[in-house]
């Protein structure tokens, strides 16, 4: 089974790219690590032709306004349906929002895409609350370990491991209590601390609520 890992983030292989970190973690403990390519650093049509020679594709992407980033869409438009059976494709989505139910639309889209491309669908793994991984990797050791376990199990079984997927996907939805807590956190401003820190560093704190297009 010859698998290629695609990083669908517009940030490509930058050190600030969470999808790249996900990709590297996924292959880290494999006996024969898969090749990783970045969509952002390739010509979409050429990359689409290149991946056609692989038995399987794992596409790792960030969530951009409830769907894939524009560059991933462009790449998808260049893919041709497989002419033979036996090829497979799977997806790993990472996003800043806590609850992975927000990936619901794109998950269904990707399943439909696999079918239209004549690929077996390996599933879509969702990880929420992932935006800060590149900034504070030590705080996300557990997530990074799970990604490596996902990769090891994939190399062995050519499938996503249900137990690992479940751990990564949790929480799927927010309980009423958690929503209440979040409202409280936002009301007292605790949820803004991280943003405010960067706004101050950039000397634009007073402009944070600007409406420049009115």
């Amino acid at each position, binding site marked *: 089974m010859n698998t290629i890992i695609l990083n669908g983030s517009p940030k490509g292989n930058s050190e600030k790219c969470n999808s790249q970190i996900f990709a590297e973690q996924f292959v880290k403990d494999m006996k024969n690590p898969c090749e990783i390519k970045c969509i*952002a650093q390739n010509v979409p049509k050429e990359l689409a032709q290149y991946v056609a020679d692989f038995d399987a594709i794992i596409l790792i992407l960030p969530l951009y306004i409830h769907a894939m980033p*524009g560059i991933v869409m462009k790449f998808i438009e260049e893919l041709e349906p497989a002419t033979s059976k036996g090829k497979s494709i799977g997806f790993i989505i990472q996003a800043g929002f806590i*609850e992975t139910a927000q990936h619901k639309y794109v998950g269904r*889209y990707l399943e*439909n895409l696999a079918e*239209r491309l004549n690929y077996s669908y390996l599933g879509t793994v969702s990880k929420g609350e992932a935006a800060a991984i590149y900034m504070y990797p030590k705080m996300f050791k557990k997530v990074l370990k799970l990604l490596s376990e996902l990769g090891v199990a994939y190399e062995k079984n050519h499938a996503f491991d249900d137990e690992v997927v479940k751990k990564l996907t949790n929480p799927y939805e927010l309980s009423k209590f958690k929503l209440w807590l979040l409202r409280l956190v*936002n009301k007292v401003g605790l949820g803004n601390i991280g*943003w405010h820190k960067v706004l101050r560093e950039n000397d634009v704190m007073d402009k944070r609520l*600007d409406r420049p297009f009115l």
Partner: protein
Amino acid sequence: MKALILNGERSFEYSLSKFSKIIEDLLKGAGYQIKTIILHEKNIGNCIGCFGCWLKKPGICIIEDDAQEVAREVINSDIIIYLTPVTFGGYSSQLKKALDRNISLISPFFGTYHGEVHHRPRYKKYPSLIGIGVFSEYNKDQAELFTNLVERNAYNFHSPSHASQVFTAGESLQEIELKINSLLSKVGVNYE
């Protein structure tokens, strides 16, 4: 009242001008000023996920190209129409990359809406959203996906109301006009 059509047709396939013309005529009849932007004629780069529009130049994307004009037009409209070929149930990459650049119109800060976490609004008022998808060949699952995506994007961009409809390229002008008329009514367009 202002309306904006974002036409996400792709330069290498069927034109969506027929749909655009019908929308323009109907909205003009209801007293709207219309602007249509054919996205593939514009210079719009991809969002690079840098959050510069939130944290460096709040409200303005740091990439200086035509996406800034698109964002300005969007927020100053009462209705926005996403007009696009349906590609596997989603928008064309032309439209998608333009929308990715619109996150400058919302705030980085979080709030809870519809029982989910979303980014808070930056502006006091946002346009209503209409999604119009055109199939070369109709597919039920993809039609549902398209409707769902428009709804999700209406939540992302705090649209006060939204509606969507898919068409197949071969539908008659009369059928198209009837359906678009119904869509416009759903977001409050009034012909009186």
